[in-house]
């Protein structure tokens, strides 16, 4: 990491801001997860369905994240793409108890990954197999199979099971994201500078 540290210092990129897109079907728990992650979270706050998007910020040890928490309802999903270009990482949330709509989630994921603003970029994708506390929830392995995650070859990805209400599993995910997003933005900005 030594080289990268120096490079980042040279590029003035310390405490770089990372734009994260938080996607997934409606009711999967995106807003709940983001609320857990932001510093001034007031637990127990009622979550209402998002219309459009919300912007939230939180910091990890070396990065500050700006998350676009998008609405997952079908009529808004085609608006996600307006925000693809400038994002550095994606959090994709799945309701692991919603077997019925798993195919819909897979369809949306495939559309996302094949979008021209996403497919060529090596941005990290973090999957939360959320609502693991529910008794009929599938394991993260099962979810990963159903979404055929192993076919994603050109992007670093990671899946972890989570319970957004209790905050379980979130730290693991964010730690993974921090390392990979850092790498991504180094490349991203080097690329910009070279260009």
């Amino acid at each position: 990491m030594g080289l990268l540290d120096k490079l980042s210092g040279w590029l003035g990129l310390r405490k770089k801001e990372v734009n994260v897109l938080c996607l997934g079907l409606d009711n999967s728990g995106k807003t709940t997860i983001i609320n857990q992650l932001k510093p001034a979270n007031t637990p127990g706050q009622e979550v209402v369905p998002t219309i459009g998007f919300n912007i939230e910020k939180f910091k990890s040890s070396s990065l500050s994240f700006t998350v676009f928490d998008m609405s997952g309802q079908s009529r808004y999903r085609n608006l996600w793409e307006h925000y693809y270009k400038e994002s550095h990482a994606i959090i994709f949330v799945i309701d692991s108890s919603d077997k019925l709509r798993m195919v819909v989630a897979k369809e949306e994921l495939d559309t996302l990954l094949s979008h021209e603003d996403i497919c060529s970029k090596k941005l990290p994708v973090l999957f939360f197999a959320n609502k693991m506390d529910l008794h009929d929830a599938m394991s993260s392995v099962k979810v990963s199979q159903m979404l055929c995650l192993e076919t994603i070859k050109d992007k670093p990805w990671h899946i972890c099971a989570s319970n957004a209400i209790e905050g379980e599993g979130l730290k693991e995910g964010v730690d993974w994201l921090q390392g990979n997003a850092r790498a991504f933005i180094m490349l991203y900005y080097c690329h910009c500078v070279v260009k």
Partner: protein
Amino acid sequence: MIKKFDKKDEESGSGSNPFQHLEKSAVLQEARIFNETPINPRRCLHILTKIIYLLNQGEHFGTTEATEAFFAMTRLFQSNDQTLRRMCYLTIKEMANISEDVIIVTSSLTKDMTGKDDVYRGPAIRALCRITDTTMLQAIERYMKQAIVDKVPSVSSSALVSSLHMVKMSYDVVKRWVNEAQEAASSDNIMVQYHALGLLYHLRKNDRLAVTKMLNKFTKSGLKSPFAYCMLIRIASKLLDETEGGHDSPLFDFIESCLRNKNEMVVYEAASAIVHMPNCTARELAPAVSVLQLFCSSPKAALRYAAVRTLNKVAMKHPSAVTACNLDLENLITDSNRSIATLAITTLLKTGSESSVDRLMKQISSFVSEISDEFKVVVVQAISALCQKYPRKHSVMMNFLSNMLRDDGGFEYKRAIVDCIISIIEENPESKETGLAHLCEFIEDCEHTVLATKILHLLGKEGPRTPQPSKYIRFIFNRVVLESEAVRAAAVSALAKFGAQNDDLLPSVLVLMQRCMMDSDDEVRDRATFYMNVLQQKQKALNAAYIFNGLSVSIPGLEKSLHQYTLDPSEKPFDMKTVPLATTPITEQKTEIAPVATSKLPEKLAPSRQDIYQEQLAAIPEFQGLGPLFKSAEPVQLTEAETEYVVRCIKHTFSRHMVFQFDCTNTLNDQLLQKVLVQMEPSESYEVLHYLPAASLPYSQPGSCYTLVRLPDDDPTAVSCTFSCTMKYLVRDCDPNTGEPDDDGYDDEYVLEDLEVTVADHIQKVLKPNFGAAWEEVGDEFEKEETFALASVRTLDEAVKNIVSFLGMQPCERSDKVPENKNSHILFLAGVFRGGHDTLVRARLALADGVTMQVTVRSDEETVVDVILASVG
């Protein structure tokens, strides 16, 4: 020198507006930096300002580019810069209707409106309501209800005002917020209370009972906010007006009680409301006028202004009430605020006596150059009114007006002066030459085409008949040399009139015409060539028909006839007589003292009432082949008001037929009428050819049936006829609630009033601007004269009015106006008789124990002359 340079710099605008030369595409390109991370608030702010500037300049943004810019802008929500965020709200509102998917910011805005930062909350509500449609409104309803009763006044006000805007779109949803609005109406904050009252009123305004209840409640409980009080006063006076409530109503008492409110704004509102009420008695007016009087001596300029402006407005309606304030108004004529001084003087001019006119005019001349055009127009209007009241003062006024005409000023101002001078000329023949001279001087340096052409037209009409017509020629010809096409063309027409009227001027007019024939403009050359050829014939009849008195046909009618003629080519030349006549003759230049701003120029030529009938009747197959519609009379009621059926008749005259149009309304909600027709029994040899029934006449939906009648060919003098009329129909009783009719019905009839056809139905009004020329043109071949005594008529004025309405002809040369204190008068009437015969009447009237009238009739057709004389005698 330096100062001058500065001024020029300022005028040219360079440097003063940094956004002047913005390019939309460049700005949109710049907007890409919204996508950059991190955000640079200062630069983004600047770009948003540019976008909003362009939008407000009316720059068109395509949907795609607008949407792209909008979505880029949404990223700026990640910045916490306050100014930038508020600029985003503004951008959202501006782009709400041009970008797609603006609801994308809904959650972000709801977050801001419910957040901790009060600076964001109000504006976020306003932006949110702009992007929310009825389908989305449910989703934010809860937040809106909370915001209305929020304890932060700016939040509550924003929510109330936004709700008010949304009433138009989603009345049913907003209606559910009435309890919250009710609660806000008892707020301690004056703005919140005012806005809450506004919302409550707009939710109820179509329900008079609810409005009354609301007024009762608030007038009893009282309000804290003076704004709310003003609004209550307006609501109350509107309600009074609508319900024609007497002044003993509690609403009037409420308004009057507001005269004693401790807030001046409320007091003024109440006074103004009372003063503007129709039918106010002197006693009711007095307290209102006396508070206005008090305001006249207030140290606050705004109050003095409000008071004097209101007094000025009512001065014409209630002069005696305003006279009570004369002393206070006198004090205001030297007010350092020129607007107040102007209003004070013009008010005094309206109410003052003849003797004070000179003094007031002198006073106002001392500062007229210091006031704005708008107030100068007020002065001119006051002068105009004064001239009508005191005709003898016209020379003072004329002098004053001519000085004003020389001053700088905009179009509205100059137009007001010119109109005023023209009306003085028309009212006072002895002022004609002075007035024309002033106008001649004015057009020497006049930048307003409309005014120049108007004055040239007037010169052409009046100049040739003055003692020294030659002196106007120079002024007119100067226009041909110096002005724009429209003015040159008008000048040519004016010149032609001098040549036609004055034989000794003809040679020089012809020389000038010759020169105009080489003009660079088509219209000017065409007119000159045309007039040249007419003038060279030296025939009075030609001059009258083609120079003095223009076309009297309906312009839209002419357009249609010509179009029709070009559609099926024929050997026959186009016949002007087939074109319907203009129904509202171009009135002689009579100047109304109408508020100048409302009469916008240029007016579009709207189809007249008769053009519309022509079209409607032509669409009915039974009435095809009747030829052009000659005249449609004003409707005549054939039933009393509030009877079971309401019927009125419009008589349409064609060259050999009449069509009677019966507009019927069934006011019984338990009846459906079918096959409705009006049977007509003529008293003379008029023949009913055809009835066209109205198929069905449901409750309260008007319908028309028609009767076609042939005019008697064999007796052309039988112009008047009485028809007895009976409405016949099939009744089907029906359920008043559902409107469902019974299966079968029964025949019934209803007797209507008799319908008269008179000579006026056979004559169409036509204005001859130069009656003398027209009189010569028709000639005396069929002239007939008779003398009558009108025993029952007491005054000349009454006689004139009766003759005009009986014959239905157009008074010319303003001869319908009988000068005061005269015991003889000549009335000139012009018209066209059915079949296209020009008809002129000259009636000499003398007052001596009743009125004696000598009528001379001329026409190109003998029977017409006989018909008219027969109908008079």
